[in-house]
């Protein structure tokens, strides 16, 4: 279409809009300061995905409930080894770091979070959590990605607005227009710098002032240039602050340390995403889960301590979730199988409702052995979008209005 007749280029040339912003070389346009790439509210969301399906009942234990001990004769945690959260629930001893933050009023816990018609496939359930779809709907974009799309209507959103510490980008951070940036380590951020051809192509394209008439060429080059800008920005930023905290010797610890350094360096990233895998505890659950929860909670404590030292804890909210909880009854392998509703942890220096926000799971009212969900996971997102990030929820999540949980 664009090759003959009235091309997109002509349109832009003639457009009144073209004169000002589009004549600035695109390389410069994208620099912070020329057009704002700042995180508008300065509030940061860190998402921790406990991949594999964390057993919420052995994380936050219904310690006064006989049904819990009856359902789990071999894997129930003993009362004297738990840390009291309230009359109904107590923390797994491995979650000491989280319990300390809870004690200080920096944690909100929401029980029984899930969605209707629960899906017990890891893939599909994670798909639903990341895309924030209805269980019967297939979305190709993630909820954070759509939040970036919504923001791009009023500001210049670059990939580094949402960062995942990994080699590949998860669905949650993919929007239609804007997609987040995935990298494993800022030091080896992108190999682009060692490939002269790619560097030259990016340079070359940056000097053009017009939109390319070939839609896909434009998209690929724009992504390349945005990647380069994001890379340069982050390489610069990551030099500012060096971590002073000790993190657990674990890939997750390293990743959270990178995030703390970027936040304390004043990086204008709005969302960070990190995954801690290994929670699919079908056999011999106790050792595996306790070790992972220990890594999680110790890391979280170091992370929050680091933020506090730079007075950033009040600008950061950490959301921890899993694709599903596990069945109430243990299985024959001293493990648990895929379940449904689960607890979600919110950690922040700006928590408005510290504590446990709703009733503990009702073990006497199960759906074929599984917990019934009471809180739709999208109300957690909706609360974060509206109260924390300042994004219009209706542009991100469809399917009705979700309750404001008020934790931030």
């Amino acid at each position: 279409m664009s090759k003959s007749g009235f091309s997109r280029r002509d349109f832009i040339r003639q457009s009144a809009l073209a004169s000002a912003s589009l004549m600035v070389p695109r390389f410069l346009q994208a620099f912070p300061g020329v057009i704002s790439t700042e995180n508008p509210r300065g509030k940061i969301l860190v998402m921790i995905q406990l991949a594999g399906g964390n057993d919420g009942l052995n994380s936050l234990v219904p310690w006064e409930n006989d049904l819990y001990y009856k359902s789990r004769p071999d894997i129930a945690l003993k009362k004297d080894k738990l840390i009291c959260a309230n009359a109904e629930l107590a923390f797994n001893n491995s979650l000491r770091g989280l319990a300390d933050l809870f004690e200080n009023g920096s944690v909100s816990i929401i029980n029984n979070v899930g969605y209707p018609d629960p899906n017990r496939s890891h893939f599909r359930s994670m798909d639903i959590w990341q895309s924030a779809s209805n269980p019967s709907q297939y979305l190709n974009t993630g909820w954070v990605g759509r939040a970036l799309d919504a923001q791009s209507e009023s500001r210049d959103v670059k990939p580094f607005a949402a960062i995942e510490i990994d080699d590949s980008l998860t669905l949650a951070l993919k929007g239609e227009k804007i997609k987040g940036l995935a990298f494993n380590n800022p030091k080896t951020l992108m190999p682009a710098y060692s490939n002269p051809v790619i560097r030259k192509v990016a340079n070359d394209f940056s000097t053009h002032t017009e939109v390319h008439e070939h839609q896909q060429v434009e998209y690929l080059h724009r992504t390349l240039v945005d990647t380069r800008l994001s890379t340069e920005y982050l390489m610069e930023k990551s030099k500012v602050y060096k971590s002073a905290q000790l993190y657990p010797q674990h890939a997750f610890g390293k990743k959270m340390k990178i995030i703390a350094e970027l936040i304390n360096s004043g990086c204008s990233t709005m969302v960070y995403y990190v995954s801690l895998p290994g929670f699919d505890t079908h056999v011999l659950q106790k050792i595996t889960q306790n070790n992972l929860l220990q890594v999680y909670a110790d890391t979280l404590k170091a992370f929050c301590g680091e933020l506090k030292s730079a007075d950033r804890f009040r600008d950061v909210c950490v959301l921890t979730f899993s694709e599903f909880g596990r069945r109430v009854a243990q299985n024959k392998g001293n493990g648990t199988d895929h379940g449904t509703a689960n607890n979600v942890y919110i950690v922040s220096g700006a928590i408005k409702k510290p504590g446990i926000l709703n009733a503990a799971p009702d073990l006497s009212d199960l759906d074929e052995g599984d917990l019934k969900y009471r809180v739709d996971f999208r109300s957690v997102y909706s609360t974060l979008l509206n109260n924390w990030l300042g994004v219009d929820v209706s542009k991100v999540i469809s399917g009705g209005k979700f309750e404001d949980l008020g934790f931030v």
Partner: protein
Amino acid sequence: MQSNILHIQHLFLRAGFGLTPPELEKVKDVPVKKLAENLFDTSVSYSGLNHLSNPIKGKEDEVSNFRILKMILKSRKQMEELNSAWLDKMARAKAVLREKMTFFWHNHFSTSTPFAWLMQEQNNTLRSNALGTFRELLHAVSKDPAMILYLNNQQNKKAAPNENFAREVMELFTLGEGNEYTEKDIKEAARAFTGWTVNRRGEFEIEGNHHDWEQKEIFGKKGNFNGNDVIDLLLEKKQTARYVVGKIYREFVNENIHKSRVEELALQFYDSGYDISRLMKSIFTSDWFYEDENIGCRIISPVEMLVRYKKWFDVSFEQEKQQLALQKVLGQVLFFPPNVAGWKGGQAWIDSASLMLRLNIPRVILKGAELDVNAKPDFEDVPDKEAKRKGMVIKSNWKPLLAFLKKKKDGKLSDQLLEHCIQCPGYRINKKIIEDVAVEGNEDENITTTLAAVMSLPEFQLI
């Protein structure tokens, strides 16, 4: 008028996995539409994917739970093998169009199960029907064991119907979301599919006692419908032809739909009794297929990209699971679509990380360097405490290509390679960037370096 080479490469990139320079040389003077006709002849005879043998074969006894569990445990490794076997087949098969269509149907009838053998069976069902009629294909897929398990139809019983298959057959396989069906149609259709299940030997079976034999009302028609009747009712609707042709057009021609053209093709498709070969022939022998706006407008998918490298450089990996890991990082693992809606494709393939990886792969192949990327662990994995990063080494063989290019000098090397590799010529590629990498005095190195540079251009991602 663009060169015949561009058009031939266009045809083969869409109807197959592209041509290497020596392959292109052989056919470069043949009229492109003649080559298009030939593609159908070369896809008549073919072989299936025969990597795994039937784990139940020869065993007449009842298949125990233990045996089934053992099959699931073995399946992961087998899926890795099956994945590699199909990629190799795509790169080597003579019946390229049939392989490409099989790949298309794999995405259309998106399925994933923990039984490698059933996935191979389904793959062969898709392949044998790939160029036949959509009618037979749809009937076969509806009785396909892997599909039944994937969409839980084994749980669809008269006493408690499961609507999953009935919903997806309308929403994703035939009519398209929200088109010409109601929630009530889904409910009634689900009743017609009750009792369609898979027995313990992994075979399709109808359990009469779980089938609902009563009257149903679907699309305003009443009858004692069964699953076959529902499929026929769906095929009676022109919307099915429209939806399938629209999807084929987006995949094989241009993601921007040309409405009147698709409507015309859909009516032909419907009138031909859903003849897939005829439809594809109409597309590949049309004039509009070779118009500039339809060339080089698709972002190549990760699988097509890997097959292309296999064809050019005989790329292989030290371990099959590395090949899978690379597919995973790039966002497309054969036999593991993300969900029943399949891979979205197009710009969804590209984000910062995946683009940088794509652009760097040619150089990694050229240098035999280690590719330092790690896939996300599987949900079932319990990773090591200190998850070790392991790079992957891509092995390749440049010799045949080098020998050919040395013998066949056709003007300037960079121009020649650009012509073979880039499907959107005339756009503002800065040729100087390519010319700058030239290596004086070493012909081999000059060719490989120049080719790697051409393949590092973002435009190489467009087919």
